[in-house]
């Protein structure tokens, strides 16, 4: 038999009318789309300023069917994956080395801080001198975008592992390596992963910047090309794809994050 207790609602008052979540979320985009379509139909805005939504959609499907969109997206994603892999691996190694050895930290930290201080885009002109404007520049810039947040979060994450846990490891007569493998690293996973996610987002941002600056392929190039041709539909289509790919990257890392730490409920 179950006893049901009705708790008085805290500060009930007159019940507020609640918007249902999904329709409310879609209301504004739908209204915007309608206004946009109406404005385009009435001819308030020239297509060079704002093309009709149908036109953007047509451009998007056309780019998709010709395979251009996929090839540009693959170029961009390839660059991000390469740069991100280099930057994240270096960042993990650097962060872990500085966290585990005060001596390494003494040697490297001031230089690292100095490098981290200049925003990604500030390095572009300097690196252009030795590297030119080819792939090497793009990969290095993207790697730098990942390096800083990954290093900082790895450093902070390993530092924040409670001393008591390490002591439990030593009480079990774990070797140094075992403590690292079974105690420190698993405990540092959440903050390290935050750094990795943040790093990937920064990489994607940096990619768009370097592709705007100099490239002959990729999604950033699609934007530049669209603007030069005064094809606003292509610019908007490019922005939609950039947002979508960014979202997919972030969502897949969020999924991986949950997989990697099954001991965390949420």
């Amino acid at each position, binding site marked *: 038999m179950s006893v049901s207790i009705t708790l008085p609602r805290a*500060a009930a008052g007159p019940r*507020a009318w*609640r*918007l249902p*979540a999904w329709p*409310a*979320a*879609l*209301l*504004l*985009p739908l209204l*915007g789309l309608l206004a946009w379509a109406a404005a385009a139909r009435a001819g308030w805005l020239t297509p*060079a*300023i704002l093309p009709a939504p149908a036109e953007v959609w047509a451009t998007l499907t056309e780019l998709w069917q010709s395979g251009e969109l996929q090839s540009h997206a693959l170029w961009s994603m390839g660059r991000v994956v390469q740069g991100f892999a280099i930057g994240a691996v270096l960042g993990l190694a650097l962060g872990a080395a500085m966290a585990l050895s005060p*001596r390494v930290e*003494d*040697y*490297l*930290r*001031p*230089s690292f801080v*100095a490098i981290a*201080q*200049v*925003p*990604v*885009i*500030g*390095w*572009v*002109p*300097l690196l*252009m*001198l*030795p590297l030119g404007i080819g792939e090497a520049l793009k990969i290095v810039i993207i790697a730098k975008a990942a390096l800083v947040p990954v290093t900082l979060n790895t450093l902070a994450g390993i530092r924040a592992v409670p001393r008591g846990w390490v002591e439990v490891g030593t009480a079990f007569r774990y070797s140094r390596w075992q403590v690292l493998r079974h105690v420190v690293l698993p405990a540092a996973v959440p903050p390290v992963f935050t750094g990795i996610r943040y790093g990937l987002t920064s990489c*994607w*941002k940096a*990619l*768009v*910047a370097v592709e*705007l*600056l100099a490239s002959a392929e990729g999604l*950033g190039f699609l*934007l*530049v090309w*669209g*603007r030069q041709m*005064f094809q*606003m539909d292509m*610019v*908007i289509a*490019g*922005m939609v794809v*950039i*947002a*979508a790919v*960014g*979202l997919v990257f*972030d969502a897949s890392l969020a999924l991986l994050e949950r997989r990697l730490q099954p001991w965390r409920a949420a």
Partner: protein
Amino acid sequence: MNARGLVLPLGLLALWQGVAAGGLADPRLLAPPGEVAATAWRVLTDPAIFLALGASLGRCLAGFVLGAGLGLCFGLLCGLSRPADRLLGPSFHALKNVAVFAWIPLIAMWFGFGEEARIIFIALATFTPMVLNSWEGIAGTPRALLEVGSVLRFGPWQSLARIRLPAALPSMMTGVQLGLMHAWLATIGAEYFLAKGTGLGGVLIEGRDTFDMALVLVGVVLLGAVGLVLSQMARLGGARLAPWKREIA
């Protein structure tokens, strides 16, 4: 400060000197350190660089004020009102996924390549972190504090002014700090992409185009220094305005 921290920079400097002196690198690409220092001195004693810096800073602040003001209003609105959260929140979170530089071609087509376009871009870059942090701050007001307010029979305005806003202030100051960093980054971006030859970004581009490595180096160092100063100012301002929360990330 530890002397060990100097080993790496000095080692690199020595390597640079060695490579330059040994003639191992194209001197156009890698001038010897002494020459770079001499050029740097010349650049730094010329008021032109500070005029450029001033132009950049003014632009950065104008965009920041616009973006942070709008962001604060938007964040507070969404944090305080559930219907606003439900109506506007999802659209905001969707648009936030557009990498900030991807807005540049759109802004260029709508507003041209003038000062207006640059300030709008900087404001846009400031808007997102400001919204996120003020929203989070106001929505995350501890329940216990709000209950104290209702025990004291605070009206909605009193509760806002005495409880919610002070509770959200540290988070808002984090937003200001992040917003300033983003604004500064966007200033340089705007000077690269939305105009040629104005401000510090213009100096960097000029240095690159003329293969003047010293000029580029001075520009990069100034860029980093200004970023550092802005972020420290925001941090100190935050600590002073909201002393009840000591650390502001």
